[in-house]
């Protein structure tokens, strides 16, 4: 065997050895490898940074909603806008949106608010600074919200955000809202929320939104009630934990309202009263508590 052939043989042997070692490693150190088996490429490459990237993609969607204006302190977000856009259709089955306030119930919330047309200069005074003066003229911003038929523009960013990280509940929530309320595709919204619930089993807001879409848009109280029940249970469990948030409290109150409303439809007044008492103990001054009390007062049969 000449020297060249020997080198080739050694090289081939090296390749086979490395390949075999690569196959052997996960078997030999099963469960102790830094990468989890079945993890996708994004998980391997980006790791924990995925959630941050996903959040920035959600912010990009918000920027699109505000007509391309960044870093804006505007009270109206995608979800509240979708509520406003769809509020006319919500009264049809006789139940108002829980916790959205009374204006929503009339269907006139933010009517004509699609375009603020508030002129935003670059935000900083350009006095005595020529460069800033030119920039403020070039980049003078017109803040206007997307109209409901334009809301499709934010979808690619929510799609990307939910694909980059399944833990970004806001991406699922807002994406489902846009699909269901602004674009009138509730089944697509439900599918997205189902995926969100699979990825975030402890997040009550996704269950709650699922219930809302099924009740308000699909008019299917039988499918909606289990979602409100699970949202209520998850929110209550979260409220008993160390990290209580106002959002969890609101989900708990609002799902209690819907459960109370559905119980009222069946004439189960004891259950309505139980939810009203629970809301009273959680937040006595909240509008949802007031709505629950109204449910009891309005139609309760006289003894």
């Amino acid at each position, binding site marked *: 065997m000449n020297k060249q052939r020997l080198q080739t043989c050694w090289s081939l042997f090296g390749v086979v050895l490395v390949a075999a070692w690569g196959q052997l490693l996960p078997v030999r150190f099963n469960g102790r490898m830094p990468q989890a088996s079945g993890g996708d490429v994004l998980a391997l490459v980006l790791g924990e940074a995925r959630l941050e990237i996903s959040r920035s993609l959600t912010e990009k969607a918000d920027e*699109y909603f505000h*007509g*391309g204006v960044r870093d804006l302190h505007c009270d109206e977000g995608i979800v509240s806008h979708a509520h406003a856009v769809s509020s006319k259709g919500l009264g049809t089955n006789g139940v108002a949106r829980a916790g959205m306030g009374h204006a929503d119930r009339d269907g006139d919330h933010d009517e004509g608010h699609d375009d603020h047309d508030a002129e935003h200069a*670059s935000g*900083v005074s350009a006095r005595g*600074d020529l*460069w*800033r003066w*030119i*920039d403020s*003229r*070039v*980049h*003078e*911003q*017109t803040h206007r919200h997307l109209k409901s038929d334009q809301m*499709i*523009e934010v*979808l*690619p*960013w*929510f*799609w*990307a955000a939910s694909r980059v990280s399944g833990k970004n509940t806001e991406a699922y929530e807002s*994406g489902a809202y846009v*699909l269901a309320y602004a*674009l009138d*595709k509730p089944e*697509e919204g439900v*599918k*997205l929320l189902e995926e969100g619930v699979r990825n975030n089993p402890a997040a009550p807001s996704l269950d709650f939104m699922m219930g809302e879409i099924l009740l308000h848009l699909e008019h299917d109280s039988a499918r909606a009630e289990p979602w409100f029940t699970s949202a209520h249970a998850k929110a209550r469990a979260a409220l008993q934990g160390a990290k209580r948030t106002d959002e969890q409290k609101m989900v708990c109150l609002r799902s209690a309202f819907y459960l109370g409303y559905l119980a009222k439809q069946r004439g189960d007044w004891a259950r309505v009263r139980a939810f009203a008492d629970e809301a009273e103990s959680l937040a006595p001054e909240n509008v949802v508590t007031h709505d629950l009390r109204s449910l009891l007062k309005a139609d309760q049969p006289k003894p």
Partner: protein
Amino acid sequence: MNIVGYRQVRALAGLSVLELYRRKDLIVVFLLCAIILLPLMLFSPFGVSGASRYVDELALLLVWVFSLVIGLGVSARLFPPEFENRTIYPMLSKPVGRGTLLAGKYMGALAASVSALVVFYLAYALLIGMRQGVWFPGILLQAFVLHVGFLVVVTALGLAGSLVMTPSANLTLCALTLLGMLFYGQRLPELAASQQPFGRCMLLALYAVGPHVEFFDLRQRVVHEWPAIGWDVCLAVMVYAVGYAAVCLMLAALAFRKKKF
């Protein structure tokens, strides 16, 4: 400049334009754009089609990136090969004055970059025309005009840098400066305010003399269908571009005059 000088400048500029198309840089970046954009155009998130702004934004971003690459690449590669191959001697002994040579090279780099930009904007206009049915909106013309202003500055900076630095150092420094100014140009005073006196002076000096290429960026206006800016503002920005390029070329002429080959 007399008629002979004008012809010399035109001949030198023509050579630079030919060089761009001979190297097929434009075809490569055009193919790259197509490879990135075509799948995105066919993409429908959550099974819903009709979103277009994200494609517009990405297309314009690619136009900006590739115009920067072409503008900087063409201008920074004009003189170094002439010095390396010593072809600068026969060129200067034609006789072509150093000023004429510099002007010709600059005009060539600018013409080549702008010709590539025309192709990019035509492709972009076709893209939005076919997808959205909007053909050549007014804001797109302004975006193109200001983008030309951007190239006026970029090519002048690249050419000046090529006379005082090595090609790799020039490309790196110019790219960093231009991208830094594009993204942080208007935030420099706020950044300076939170620095120690030395850092503050440096940042404020950069703010004063750095190339404010953010003036030329109308991408947000185009993508989100904002109204067009006033043409007086457009003119003011173009005056800035020409003024900045003139200063760069004067410094380049100074460096070229003192350069020993």
